[in-house]
């Protein structure tokens, strides 16, 4: 006779602040069954009738052991208290933290914001994007740059989500700082391996960032004065245990400090640079089954230059705005649904000129996105996710206005490119038996380029337009479909080590075209059209994962091969003004790439002395028919060796010492190879080498930091 299955479900939150806790382990030892809380703190586990001891545990929190008599479905919300004793932390965490060996997901790393805050930071500004660059398989865009490259993929192939809203440009100050204010962030998850099918739209990685909910229990203010920027965070309950808010802002002030140094008569008066950002979130627990979250981000960088002597000035503002409204609903103890509406906007402008000539260039991307994600906790053997996603994209590749005195130049119509992107997906995380677990999924995606749109056919010899095709509003111009199968599997060995493999096939319908040699806000997001095909990537990966000393140490070796198709680059000698009365995609050239590598990772998770060592050996190549006659060349961020060592030592409750060491093969680059003398122009003309034919010296860096927790200091005082 079969015993009846019952469901134990609920939310887990921080007892002090009411903040939902992500990734809390719920473990039933008697049945050897477990579950973890999702990004909203919800969990569900199926058990037969009977009496069980259920343990709730989470790093840094005291565990809770509940004895539960199962006769029916049980709803149990848990409040976990922060552990005061570091020794407790070791004991609590050591038993259950084997997700890296037992889970099916490969190449997934979660970092808590508290951990990130103790790692040495550039100019003292805690930076999420710079921290993930210390992980194996993740390369930095350059010294101090927040741009990152995952397993040989381009910077546009990373899906960066802030509370489920896509962030198109994640950097301030031309890449030196990320837009994410660490004070408002709760959790950071990076998926660099085969991404599960609930994620899509990018080829290389997902960086899923969750904002804090805000304190449900009491008002709290945090602030900081840094070398670069100052910040302030306010949070508190709107209605205790029911609704909360968090509001966090940052602003740089070098412009304010420099202002008194620039005299009123200086030709450069009025020049300066600043950035600011605001992050806000409101949460309502409407009922036991319904929760509502409204979160938003708004940030701007503004660079202004004046030269009165030369009668010349320009102003460059750029930034992101995102807003997401999410509604969690529990249809039953087994069926969790999240409905999300997202608005995302990124724009860039360059306004410049003199007293009698003015020029304005704008570009941007705006998305409206609606989606539903269902999680069905079928049984302890199956965890099923399914959902749909629709996005209306509006791209402004480059729009130009120019005038000379009262004469307005004819810059053509403001070009907007519209597209529908949609996807449905289904995945099952299936425990076939005690040893074998399989996560298989299918994502079906679609992109449709729709009117209004004007296609230009220009004469290459004269630059003039031979003919155009005008598409009316809403008219489908080109539709692409992409089946995206995903598979990952884990085989658990008796010693609790595991072997995993994964295959992921992804479609990416938008592209980033960079006209300069470095990643800048001038880079254009451009969608697939009838000329530009979607990027297609396939990644094969496998790895061996083992934990030592009661899960105190994690170790892994992962191998991957990634194939990338329909990559884009600007043709040589393209200029932004070439977009006038032309399509951006007429200036693009198309190619492919591949990357393969091995990643080694050793992490000490617990104890006063902890940290990790990551080493990557990899090769990343590109091939474009119109570059160097089709000969393949190393990608700019091709690095044969990349080593990161991140160490922390907790001296006492208040003082933490951190150290980072990075060693990487130098970037590849093109160099001047030959020259000739132009008598007509009286200039030396440079002839460049083949693309990225040379390599800089190896890069190495060591940083040390000391973090003193003033809060704890105050408490003692």
């Amino acid at each position: 006779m079969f015993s009846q299955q019952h469901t134990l479900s609920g939310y887990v939150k921080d007892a002090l602040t009411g903040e939902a806790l992500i990734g809390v382990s719920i473990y039933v030892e008697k049945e050897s069954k477990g579950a973890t809380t999702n990004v909203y703190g919800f969990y569900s586990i199926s058990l037969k009738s009977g009496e069980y001891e259920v343990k709730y545990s989470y790093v840094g929190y005291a565990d809770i052991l509940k004895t539960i008599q199962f006769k029916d479905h049980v709803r149990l919300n848990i409040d976990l208290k922060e552990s005061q004793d570091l020794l407790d932390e070791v004991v609590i965490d050591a038993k259950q933290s084997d997700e890296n060996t037992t889970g099916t997901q490969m190449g997934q790393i979660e970092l808590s914001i508290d951990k990130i805050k103790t790692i040495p930071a550039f100019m003292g500004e805690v930076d999420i994007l710079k921290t993930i660059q210390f992980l194996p398989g993740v390369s930095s865009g350059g010294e101090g740059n927040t741009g990152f490259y995952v397993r040989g993929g381009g910077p546009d192939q990373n899906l960066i989500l802030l509370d489920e809203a896509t962030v198109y440009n994640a950097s301030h100050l031309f890449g030196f700082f990320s837009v994410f204010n660490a004070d408002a962030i709760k959790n950071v998850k990076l998926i660099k391996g085969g991404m599960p099918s609930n994620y899509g739209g990018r080829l290389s990685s997902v960086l899923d960032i969750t904002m804090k909910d805000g304190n449900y229990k009491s008002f709290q203010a945090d602030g900081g004065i840094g070398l670069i920027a100052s910040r302030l965070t306010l949070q508190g309950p709107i209605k205790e245990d029911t609704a909360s808010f968090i509001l966090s802002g940052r602003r740089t002030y070098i412009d304010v400090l420099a202002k008194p140094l620039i005299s009123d008569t200086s030709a450069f008066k009025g020049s300066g640079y600043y950035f600011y950002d605001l992050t806000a979130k409101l949460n309502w627990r409407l009922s036991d089954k319904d929760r509502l979250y409204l979160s938003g981000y708004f940030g701007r960088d503004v660079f202004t230059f004046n030269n009165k002597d030369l009668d010349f000035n320009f102003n460059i503002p750029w930034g992101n705005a995102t807003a997401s409204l999410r509604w969690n609903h529990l249809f039953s103890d087994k069926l969790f649904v999240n409905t999300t509406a997202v608005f995302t906007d990124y724009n860039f402008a360059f306004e410049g000129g003199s007293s009698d000539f003015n020029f304005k260039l704008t570009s941007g991307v705006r998305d409206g996105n609606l989606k539903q994600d269902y999680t069905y906790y079928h049984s302890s053997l199956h965890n099923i996710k399914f959902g749909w996603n629709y996005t209306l994209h509006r791209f402004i590749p480059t729009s130009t206005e120019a005038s000379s005195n009262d004469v307005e130049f004819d810059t053509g119509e403001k070009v907007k490119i519209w597209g529908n992107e949609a996807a449905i997906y289904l995945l099952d995380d299936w425990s076939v038996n005690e040893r074998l677990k399989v996560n298989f999924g299918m994502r079906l995606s679609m992109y449709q380029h729709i009117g209004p749109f004007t296609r230009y056919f220009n004469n290459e010899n004269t630059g003039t337009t031979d003919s155009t095709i005008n598409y009316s509003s809403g008219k489908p111009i080109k539709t692409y479909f992409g089946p995206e199968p995903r598979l990952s599997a884990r085989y658990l060995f008796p010693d609790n080590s595991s072997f995993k493999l994964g295959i992921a096939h992804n479609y990416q319908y938008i592209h980033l075209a960079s006209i300069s040699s470095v990643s800048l806000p001038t880079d254009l997001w451009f969608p697939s059209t009838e000329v530009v095909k979607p990027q297609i990537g396939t990644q094969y990966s496998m790895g061996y994962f083992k934990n030592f000393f009661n899960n105190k140490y994690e170790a892994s070796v992962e191998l991957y091969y990634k194939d990338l198709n329909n990559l884009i680059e600007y043709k040589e000698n393209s200029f932004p003004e070439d977009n006038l009365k032309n399509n951006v995609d007429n200036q693009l050239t198309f190619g492919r790439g591949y990357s393969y590598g091995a990643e080694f990772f050793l992490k000490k998770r617990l104890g006063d002395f902890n940290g990790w060592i990551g080493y990557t050996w990899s090769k990343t190549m590109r091939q474009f028919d119109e570059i160097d006659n089709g000969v393949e060349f190393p990608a700019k961020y091709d690095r044969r060796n990349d080593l990161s060592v991140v160490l922390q030592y907790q001296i006492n409750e208040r003082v933490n010492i951190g150290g980072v060491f990075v060693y990487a093969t130098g970037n590849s680059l093109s160099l001047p190879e030959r020259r000739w003398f132009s008598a007509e122009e009286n200039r030396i003309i440079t002839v460049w080498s083949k693309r990225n034919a040379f390599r800089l010296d190896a890069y190495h860096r060591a940083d040390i930091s000391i973090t003193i927790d003033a809060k704890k200091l105050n408490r003692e005082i």
Partner: protein
Amino acid sequence: MKKFYYILLFGFITVSCQKKIEFDLPEVEQTLVLEATVENGFAPKVILTRSQGYFDVFDTMSLINMFITDAQVKLSDGINEFDLDFGLIATNGLPLPGYTTSNPDVIGQFGKNYTLNVYHQGDTLTAKAQIPYPVQMDSVWFDPYIAFDDTLGWIKCNFKDPDTVGNCYRWFSKRINSYTYNYEAPFDNVLGEVKDKRFLPPIGSTTDDKLFNGLKFDFVLPRGVNGVVEGPDDSGVEGSFFSRGDTVVVKSSTTTYPIYLYVRAMENAAASNGSIFSSSGNLPYNVEGDGIGVFYGYGSSYDTLICE
């Protein structure tokens, strides 16, 4: 108070050091380079050189040796083909070794298309150029820049673009009056010398008419620069300005789209040398065959003004 800010600002300044980066550059094969011009009213000018290693020593000998003196150069105007002779030709205000002809039938004419064929030690180069019909400025005048005083200024031009798309332009200026005083060394003996020995283009000297097809408008023409050769008044307050009293010939040249693309890229590379915004691409040459280079075609008209 200011002191306080200086101290505060000092806090932002960190000590830095530079490390010399060395690369092993492999020997690369040098290539034939063609630079030729056809222009209305002038004999064709062709200069043939060989490229050099980027870090090779650049001295008088290497300059002399880079010119190719034994090539066969043929120019066709679509009807007849003419041999060009080796000799000294006046390019850039200086006589340089090159190829031209004294045949009056080969003087550049509006509307003609020219093809150049070069043969040298088994290498062949072919290039095409056109002399388009010129577009004369409607008016040119001196516009003093009052921010300094009214002795310096730019030249302003009023221009009407024909209502046909695809026109490309390049503008030059040449001051034909002499310096009336000396400058600091090494320009301490320029008194009496003619200011510009050739027509000089400013950076940003070329454009197509996409923005202003068929429009009549004013634009500013800064003083041109002689490539990498700095003149006495190219830096300091006089840089890019004309002076009151200058006699200036403004040359307005129409050209073709490939030359517009080439000059735009060449000037951009010159202006952004070393900038992170610059790209490392080679210029869009309009020469085919076993080498690189450019074959300019200009249809030019001239205006002369006295800056007063």
